[in-house]
C-alpha cells in the first residue's frame, strides 16, 4: 500500500503510510487542512482539490470527464489539478506528493 504526502497551503507536510482508498478518504481520515470533502466524494463540491506534481501526473492519471467539467470553472485550477475524491490509490502511487489547494 502506498505512502502519500500532502503539502498544505501553509507549507506543512503530512505523510501517511499504508494509504488505502481514495486520496480524499485518506486526507479526511487524517484531517488534512484544506480537504473538506463536504459531499463525501461524489464529485459535487470541489472541496478536495489538490495539485499533482508533474512527475506524478502519468501515474495518477488525467481528470475524468465529470471532474474536468467541475475543475474548468474552479478558481485556482490548472493542468495539475485533480479532485482527490477521484484518485483511487494504487501501489504504483507509492511516494505520491500532492499540494492541497486552498479553498
Amino acid at each position, binding site marked *: 500500500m502506498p505512502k502519500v504526502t500532502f503539502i498544505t497551503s501553509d507549507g506543512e507536510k503530512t505523510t501517511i503510510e499504508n494509504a488505502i482508498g481514495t486520496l480524499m478518504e485518506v486526507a479526511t481520515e487524517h484531517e488534512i487542512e484544506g480537504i*473538506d470533502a*463536504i459531499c*463525501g466524494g461524489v464529485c459535487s463540491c470541489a472541496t478536495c482539490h489538490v495539485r499533482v506534481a508533474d512527475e506524478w501526473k502519468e501515474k495518477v492519471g488525467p481528470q475524468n470527464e465529470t471532474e474536468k467539467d467541475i475543475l474548468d470553472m474552479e478558481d485556482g485550477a490548472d493542468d495539475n489539478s485533480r479532485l482527490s475524491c477521484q484518485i483511487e490509490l494504487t501501489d504504483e502511487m507509492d511516494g505520491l506528493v500532492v499540494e492541497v489547494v486552498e479553498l
Partner: protein
Amino acid sequence: MRWTDLSLKSWNSKDFQLTMDNTSCPYHDPFKKARQENGVMETEVAGEKIALILGYKDVRSAAREYATFSSDAPFRVPIPSEEDARSVRQLPIETNPPEHKEYRAIVEPFFRRPMQKDYIAKIESLVDDLVENAIQQDSIKVITEFALPLQSRALTHLLNVPEKEADTWVSWGVHVFREGNSNDSQKGQALEDYIHQQLDMAKQNPGEDFFSALTRAEYQGRPLTRDEMLGFANLTFAGGRDTVIHSISSTIAYLSEHPEALAALRENPKLVITATEELMRYISPITHIGRVCPVKTDVNGVQVEADSRVALSWASANFDETVFESPEELRLDRKPNPHMAFGNGTHNCLGAIHARLIIRSLLKKLSELQSITLLSAQRSIEKEVDYERELGYKNLTVTLNR
C-alpha cells in the same frame, strides 16, 4: 446560495401520486422540454418576467459570471423577490465579489462547525432522540412533529444557542415569511423583532453564540451596522428552514415507499453518503435563485432587459440528461453525482455542511427500522404560470416500525 423561503403566494397543494421515482409523473422535471429546446424558459413569477436558465453547464457558468448575472441586488436574489418580507439586504448572499468574500468570511466559521466530531455527535444524538420518540407513537405527522422540530433544534447547535430556543422557532411554522393568514410584512417583522431582541441581549451579555459573534464582527475595519447584523441573521433563519424541512419529509416519504432502500442502507452503511447526495439532487430543495442583469443581456437567444432578472435553475440542472444518466431514477449509489442542490460557485450554500449532516444522520438512524408505513401524504406543488413542480409535502403521516 441561500435556501430561500419557497412557500410562494401562488403555491397550491393537492393530492398527487406519491412515488418519487417513476417517469410518468409530470412534476419531477417540468423544465425538460425547454431545457432540451434552447435551455431557457421565459416565464413570469409573481407578475415579474424572468428567464430561467436551465442547462447544467449554463447554470454553472452563470453562477460565476457575477458581472453579467449580479447578486448585488437587495431583496431580489430570492424568487419571488422579498421587498415586502424584510427591511434589509440579506448577507452575504445579496452581494457580489469582492465584498461578498469578506462578508462571508465573517460567518463562515460558524457554518464550518458541523465538520467537527462533537458537533456531528450532537446532531446524531438529536436525530436519535426524535426518531426514538417517533417510534413510540402510533403515527407521526412528519412536518409538524418531526421535520420542523428537527430543523429548529439542529439550528440551535449551528448558532450555538440553548436548544430550548427552538421552541420559539417552531412556533413560527414551516416558513418564516409566509404562512396561513399572516402576510409577508407581519411575519417578516416578527422575525426582525426577534433578531433585534437577540442582538440587544448579545450586546449586553456577549457569549459564544452567533448573535454575539455578529456584534463583535468587523467589516472593512469597522463594526457591522445593525442592518448588516440583521441581514446575516435574517438569511440564517430564512435560508435553511423550508428547504431542510422539505428534504427531511421527502427523505422519509421515499424510504416509506422503498423498504429495499432501508435494507440497502442497513447492509451497507457507507451508502449513507452517496444516498444523501442523490436525495438532495432529486429533491433539489430550492428550485432556483435569482440574478439581476445590470445591462440588456442575451441568454441563449432570450433578451433580458437591463435591471431584469434571470434565475439559475438548480432543479433543472440537476435533471440534465447530458450530465446525469437516467436523471429521473433515484440511485442511492450514484457516483459521480456533480449535482448543484446546494447551489454552485462563490455563493454555494453556507448551510450545506449542516444540512448534509442532518440528512446523513437521519438516513443512518432510519436504516435501523424494519419499515416506514405511509399513512397519508399531500404533496406541496410549486405552481407557476408555465410550470408546476413537486417539492416536499404539505402533510405526511407515517408510522415508524422497528
